[in-house]
C-alpha cells in the first residue's frame, strides 16, 4: 500500500488571532517520513492538530489525497497531557479503541480483532500486558500502549506529536522500530521531534518550523547551522500590538 499525499497551502492557524502557524505551504510526498522540528511555541502541535481536524485553520487549505483516489484514514498521537492515565481500563481495551472507525459505539470485537490487539501489544514489547489496568503503567509503557493502539488503527497518514518524550533509550528504540515499519509499509508518517541527532539519523525529510516555514526538504540541508540560527531567532512572545497581517493571501 502507499500512503497519501499531504498538501498544505498558505495555512494560517491562530490562537486568539495570533498566528501559531503562519502562511505555511508544504507538500509531504506519499510514503514519506518527515520530522517537524523547531523551538517551543513554533506551532508544531497546532500544525498537527490542524491536519487532524482538531484546530480550525483561519486561512489556507489542507488536502490529504491518496494516489489511487481511495479514502484515507488518519491517526494522531497527541502528547499525553490530555489523557486520564488513572482511568480504570485494561490495556487490551485501550488497544481495541483503535478499531473505533470500524466498530463504532455498538459492534463487538471479533476473535480476529482480539488477536490483532494481542499482536499489536506484542509488537510494542507489551506482550502479556492485555489484562493489566492502565493505571499500573509507567510513562514509557503507556507510550508503548498508545503505539499499539496506533498499530491497530491501521492509518494511512500517521501524525506523532513528540512520540519519544519522557521514554528511556530502549523504549525509544523499540518505538522507532515500529515507526520505521510503518515507513517500510509505505504509510506517510509525520513526527514532531526535538532530538536533532535522531532526526538526522533516521528521518529522510525535515520541516524546520518557527511559526513560518524556515526550511523544508532533505534533512541534511534543512538542519544547517544557518537555518537553525534563523529558527532560534523567532520571538517567543506574541506581539500584543501586532497589526492585522497583510501577508500573502491564500490562492
Amino acid at each position, binding site marked *: 500500500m502507499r500512503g497519501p499525499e499531504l498538501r498544505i497551502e498558505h495555512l494560517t492557524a491562530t490562537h486568539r488571532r495570533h498566528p501559531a502557524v503562519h502562511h505555511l505551504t508544504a507538500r509531504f510526498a506519499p510514503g514519506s517520513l518527515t520530522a517537524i522540528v523547531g523551538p517551543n511555541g513554533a506551532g508544531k502541535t497546532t500544525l498537527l492538530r490542524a491536519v487532524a481536524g482538531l484546530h480550525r485553520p483561519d486561512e489556507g487549505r489542507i488536502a490529504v489525497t491518496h494516489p489511487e483516489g481511495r479514502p484515507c484514514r488518519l491517526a494522531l498521537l497527541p502528547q499525553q497531557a490530555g489523557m486520564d492515565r488513572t482511568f480504570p*481500563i485494561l490495556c487490551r481495551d485501550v488497544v481495541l479503541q483503535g478499531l473505533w472507525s470500524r466498530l463504532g459505539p455498538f459492534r463487538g470485537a471479533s476473535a480476529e480483532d482480539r488477536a490483532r490487539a494481542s499482536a499489536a501489544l506484542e509488537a510494542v514489547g507489551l506482550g502479556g500486558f492485555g489484562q493489566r489496568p492502565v493505571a499500573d503503567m509507567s510513562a514509557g509503557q503507556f507510550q508503548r500502549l498508545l503505539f499499539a493502539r496506533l498499530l491497530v488503527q491501521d492509518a494511512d497518514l500517521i501524525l506523532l506529536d513528540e512520540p519519544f518524550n519522557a521514554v528511556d533509550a530502549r523504549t525509544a528504540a523499540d518505538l522507532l522500530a515500529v515507526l520505521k515499519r510503518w515507513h517500510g509499509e509505505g504509510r506517510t508518517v509525520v513526527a514532531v521531534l526535538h532530538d536533532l541527532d535522531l532526526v538526522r539519523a533516521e528521518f529522510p525529510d525535515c520541516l524546520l518550523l518557527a511559526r513560518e516555514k524556515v526550511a523544508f526538504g532533505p534533512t541534511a540541508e534543512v538542519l544547517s547551522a544557518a537555518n537553525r540560527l534563523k529558527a532560534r531567532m523567532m520571538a517567543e512572545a506574541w506581539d500584543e500590538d501586532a497589526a492585522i497581517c497583510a501577508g500573502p493571501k491564500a490562492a
Partner: protein
Amino acid sequence: MLEALLGPFVEFGFMRRALVGCVALAVAAPPLGVLLMLRRTSLTAEVLAHGVTPGIAAGFLVAGLSVPAMSLGGLVAGLLVALGAGALSRATGGREDAALTALYLIALALGVTLVSLRGDTGDLTHLLFGQVLGVDDAALLLMAGVATITLPALALAWRPLALETFDPAFARAEGAQGALWHMLFLTLVVLNVLAAFQAMGTLMAVGLMMLPAVAARHWARELSGLAYAAVAIAAASAFAGLLASYHLDLPSGPAIVLTAGLAWAVSVVAGPVDGLAARLLRRPHLAG
C-alpha cells in the same frame, strides 16, 4: 433472624413498594454515578438534584402533591440546568465548580421559596427529604420506568462515554460524537434524580447514585467491575437501610443514605484497591 430480615416486607405492602422502588433505583443510578465520578463531575449530580427543585416546586404549586405534575416540572428544570451547566463548563474551560455551586444554591432557595408560597412544613419536608414509605403507584411506576429506560440507554452509550472520559482528544479525532452522548448521559442523570426524589427528596436524591460509586472505587480496577460493585453496594444499602428504618424507627431516606455512607466508610478502610488496611498491612513483596 429470618423474621427480622424479611418479616417487614412480607407483612407490609408499603415496605414491599419501597423495596421494589429503591432496588430499581439502585440498579440504574450507580453506573451513572461511576461515570460522573470518573469524569470528575460528581458535583454535577448534586447540581442537577438541586436544579430540579424549582421545577418540582412549580409543579406542586400548580397541582399539589401530584407525581406527574412535579415530575414534568422537575424534568424541564433539570434539562435546563443540565444545558446551562454544560454551557458553563465550556465557557469556563472545565473550571466550572464555583459557578455550579452558585447555580445550585440559587435553585435550592428558589424551590424552597416556591413551596413555602402555598404548602406547609409537611410539604416542604416531603420535597426536601422525600417519603420512601409513602411511595404510591404513580411514584413506583416512575421509578421502575426510569430504571427500565436507563439500563438499555446506558448499555448503548457505555463505550462512547468511556472513550470520551478516558481520552477526549482521541474521541474527537475519531468523530465519536462526544457531545451528543454526553447530552443523553445528562438526561439519564436528570431522570434518575427525579425518580430518586420520589423516595429520598431533593436533598438526598444523589445519595444512592454517588455514594456506592465512590465506594466501588475500592473494590474494582476496571470500569465494568466498578459498575457491578456500585450496583451491589447500592442494592444492599437500600435493603439494609429500609430494614434499619423499620426496626429503629428512623426516617427512611436518610437511613438508606447513611447505610450507603457506612458501606463507603467500610470500603475506604477494608477495600482491596487503595484501602487503608491494605496500605497499612504490609505484605512481603514478590520476587518479580
